């Protein structure tokens, strides 16, 4: 009886916590939306109650973009979680996870509403800590623990660099106090920095906080941590926590360290393009569904940085103000969009994992017929992330592309020079993403099941289904209303000095003097109308259709292993980019077969992880070598260690004199 009571109690705690989360996030989302729309703040908001503000905090349009994104995906995640927690074994207990989740959400909100560097950094560190606990929630296998440690280490090293950037700005102040770390005071200090100092701040902020955003080559933690975490945490990681990295880069580099030099815009564009391309290329080679999604986060972060970078660069050339605003709005809108479709994809991936206990695409197949809801929602997410009209990914990608095309008319030589490469690069990214998501949807969800688990897959329960459907709906609504959303997101440029010159006459049509015309709403209406008409006209033939075995050239019957695999599907692309991937293949007789008459072969294909091999491995071994050296030198006694520490302290103080 008591066990039953305990379970009921735990379940009740989980559900009521989820309900509270939904309410809190609804408040946060309303606050964010009001802030973007320029309305008076609602009576209760994230950083205020009535007129009383929490010291060091406040919401401005830039933070509101992320806060809104958090609310948009946090509510479905809260709906998704209880069923997920009920259906799992091992790891942290449900109530503990459910207690950690609001803490994580709270720290995220603290980061995006901070108006004080100290609040920001404290919130940032707490966010990392809670995120790490939740990454570890699903068990303590070695790989999970390694992923968590990698995440913590990289995040901390990054934070250290970022903190230095903030302190360099603050160092102009005669006193160091809580108030002197207010953004208002930092902005004044930032204005007077020398060019060299400013450059140091910008680069440190980009590298430091960009680590959390997962820009290449600092992205290596991302594809490790995402698969290790439970899926709703992956959704939150990709959807918002990574965006917090972008947000803090923008806040520190583009807001506090203003005026931003032109070259930094170009740097952001370069970082963005390389992250986008490398992210999507590595995603294409992945067979692990969640790792694939994680690499796509790298790609989309790249696209966001391209938008922000172009906005920064263009805002300094005359005549293209509306284009600059469009570029920035596209970048910020993509923050929301990516949060929505990536959360959707991760939740669906979680649903698949929950029923077949595998993340390997090669073990899936035919899931759409077993899990029609999850499959259809995954398809919507796949279409959205591939930039297909009329969904939200199309709106932001198209806007960015148009801004890039328009930037070819800039008076700045460097922008004109880079514009064609950026246009082609973004188009290539989009096309590769589409190819990747054809694979990521087609291989697991279509065709015949490739494993016993996949054959017995079952649809998830109502809560997760509702969460996924909500996010899929959000993809559609954000796409159709994208002109409105872009106008609102353009306001996020205000704190960065990129004024919102974006106004459209209609909430359904994007159009302007320097901006081409498109309307996801009209496209959606037209395509839907024609599709419906054709579907109705041909319904008779579909109803009478004969079901037959697929045509396999007269063979006895079709076998699941006749189907294309995920790795076969991308072989052409792998070969074209072989200089990057360095693919290799081992083919040998399977174990236990006689060598002269081989009935079964074992083949293994792999690609070279370039960044791990040529950047991180040497770095790690260098650190190890130095540590070993110092170990032998400094460890004889605690006293020697203490002495050296004191010497270092004195040197530092002497330097400060």
């Amino acid at each position, binding site marked *: 009886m008591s066990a039953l009571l305990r379970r009921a109690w735990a379940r009740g705690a989980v559900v009521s916590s989820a309900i509270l989360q939904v309410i809190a996030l609804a408040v946060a989302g309303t606050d964010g939306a009001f802030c973007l729309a320029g309305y008076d703040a609602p009576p209760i908001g994230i950083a205020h109650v009535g007129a009383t503000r929490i010291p060091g905090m406040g919401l401005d349009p830039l933070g509101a973009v992320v806060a809104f994104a958090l609310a948009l995906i946090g509510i479905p995640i809260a709906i998704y979680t209880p069923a997920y927690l009920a259906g799992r074994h091992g790891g942290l207990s449900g109530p503990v996870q459910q207690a950690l989740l609001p803490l994580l959400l709270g720290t995220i909100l603290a980061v995006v509403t901070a108006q004080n560097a100290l609040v920001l950094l404290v919130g940032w560190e707490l966010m990392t800590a809670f995120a790490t606990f939740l990454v570890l929630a699903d068990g303590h296998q070695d790989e999970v623990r390694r992923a968590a440690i990698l995440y913590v280490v990289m995040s901390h090293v990054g934070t250290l660099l970022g903190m230095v950037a903030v302190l360099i700005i603050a160092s102009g102040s005669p006193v160091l106090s809580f108030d002197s770390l207010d953004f208002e005071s930092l902005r004044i200090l930032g204005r007077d920095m020398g060019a060299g100092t400013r450059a140091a701040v910008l680069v440190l902020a980009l590298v430091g906080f960009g680590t959390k955003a997962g820009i290449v080559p600092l992205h290596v933690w991302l594809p490790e941590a995402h698969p290790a975490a439970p899926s709703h945490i992956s959704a939150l990681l990709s959807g918002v926590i990574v965006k917090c990295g972008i947000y803090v880069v923008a806040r520190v580099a583009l807001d506090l360290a203003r005026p931003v030099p032109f070259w930094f815009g170009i740097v952001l564009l370069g970082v963005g393009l390389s992250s986008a391309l490398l992210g999507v290329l590595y995603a294409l080679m992945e067979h692990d569904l969640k790792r694939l999604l994680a690499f796509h986060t790298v790609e989309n972060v790249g696209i966001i940085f391209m938008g922000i970078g172009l906005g920064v660069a263009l805002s300094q050339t005359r005549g293209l103000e509306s284009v600059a605003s469009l570029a920035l709005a596209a970048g910020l809108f993509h923050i929301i969009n990516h949060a929505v479709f990536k959360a959707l994809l991760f939740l669906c991936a979680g649903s698949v994992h929950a029923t077949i206990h595998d993340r390997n695409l090669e073990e899936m197949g035919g899931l759409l017929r077993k899990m029609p809801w999850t499959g259809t929602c995954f398809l919507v997410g796949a279409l959205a992330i*591939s930039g297909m009209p009329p969904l939200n990914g199309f709106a932001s990608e198209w806007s960015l592309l*148009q801004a890039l095309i328009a930037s070819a008319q800039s008076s700045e030589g460097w922008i004109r020079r880079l514009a064609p490469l950026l*246009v082609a690069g973004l188009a290539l990214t989009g096309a590769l993403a589409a190819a990747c998501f054809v694979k990521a949807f087609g291989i697991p969800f279509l065709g*015949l099941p490739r494993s016993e688990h996949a054959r017995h897959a079952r649809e998830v329960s109502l809560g997760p289904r509702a969460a996924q459907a909500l996010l899929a709906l959000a993809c559609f609504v954000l796409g159709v209303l994208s002109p409105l959303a872009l106008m609102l997101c353009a306001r996020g440029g205000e704190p960065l000095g990129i004024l919102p010159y974006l106004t459209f006459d209609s909430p359904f049509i994007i159009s302007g003097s320097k901006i081409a015309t498109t309307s996801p709403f009209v496209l959606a209406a037209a395509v839907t109308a024609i599709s419906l008409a054709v579907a109705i006209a041909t319904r008779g033939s579909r109803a009478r*259709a004969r079901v037959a075995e*697929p*045509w396999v050239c007269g063979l006895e019957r079709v076998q699941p292993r006749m189907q294309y695999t995920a790795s076969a599907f991308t072989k052409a692309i792998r070969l074209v980019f072989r200089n990057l991937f360095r693919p290799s293949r081992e083919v040998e007789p399977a174990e236990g077969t006689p060598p002269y008459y081989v009935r079964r072969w074992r083949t293994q294909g792999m690609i070279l992880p370039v960044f791990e091999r040529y950047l991180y491995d040497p770095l790690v071994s260098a650190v190890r070598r130095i540590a070993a050296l110092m170990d032998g030198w400094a460890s004889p006694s605690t006293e020697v260690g203490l002495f050296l520490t004191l010497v270092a302290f004195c040197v530092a103080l002497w330097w400060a004199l």
Partner: protein
Amino acid sequence: MSDSTLESVRGALIAALQGIVLVALAPLLNGLIRKVKARLQRRIGPPLLQHYRDVAKLFRKESIRPSPASWIFDAAPIVSFATASVAAALTPAICALPATGQGDVVTVIYLLALGRFFVILAGLDAASSFGGLGSSRDAAVSVFAEPVAMLSLAVVAAALRTTTDVSGISLASTDAAVASGTSLGLLAPWRLLAALAFFIVVLAECARVPFDNPATHLELTMVHEAMLLEYSGPSLALVTLASLAKQLVLLSIVASGFFPVGVATSLQPAALLVAGAVFVAKLAGLAVLIAIVESAIAKVRFLRVPDYLGVAFGIALLAYVAREAF
């Protein structure tokens, strides 16, 4: 009704009319290509209207569904037909009016990509190896074709200092021609190079030689058709119509997007008639060009497809640079 509402209703009607006409003419264009190709081989070739007969026949035939297929298999022909039709309504063709808000050419490319996404998925849905083979190859071709398409469109917009709007491109071209007192702007190097790059993309996107062989019977050498091997009856008719419409849409971007000479800028019947005649003449010219290309060169090994598209990318880049120089 206010003037602007009237204008947009009129614009929508014109676009719808254009869509219907282009989709209806798409099989004829391919018939012409086949006819010219046959003539170059000293054959008589299939009748000009053969595609219509094929499609009419397919609508009267039985539909067969492969047993592993999901709803994607049924939806793909419908979606690809719908997107191709909407693309046909938005593509630059006969007239360009600033007020119709026809939209821009980039959107047209994105729409076609949506249709292609579904067709590629349908290739995987039937669980046959051929479908996977076609899907994989089609996805790879699109990956390398898309950047070239976008870049060559960007060249036009940048050179004319306008957007990629259909009306913008057309009006800027005529203005430029009028201002310089000559139509030489229509044969400027950047325009020719960008159009050439885009034309190569059209060959790749429409599964034509040297990227694919529309007449092949051998599954192993197929790209586009391998994805459609499972389709029959009305569904096959729809995907066939969709690919034919897509071909016409892309060719009319070449004809009226890169060379907007003769595009009507008013709705006078006489102007529309002339513009229509010019448009048909341009398309016929392109059909002959495709037939000559297909007769002159052989299909390349699939892994060399990126090389050809790499050359196209180089041409587009050259066009971008040439725009500054000339």
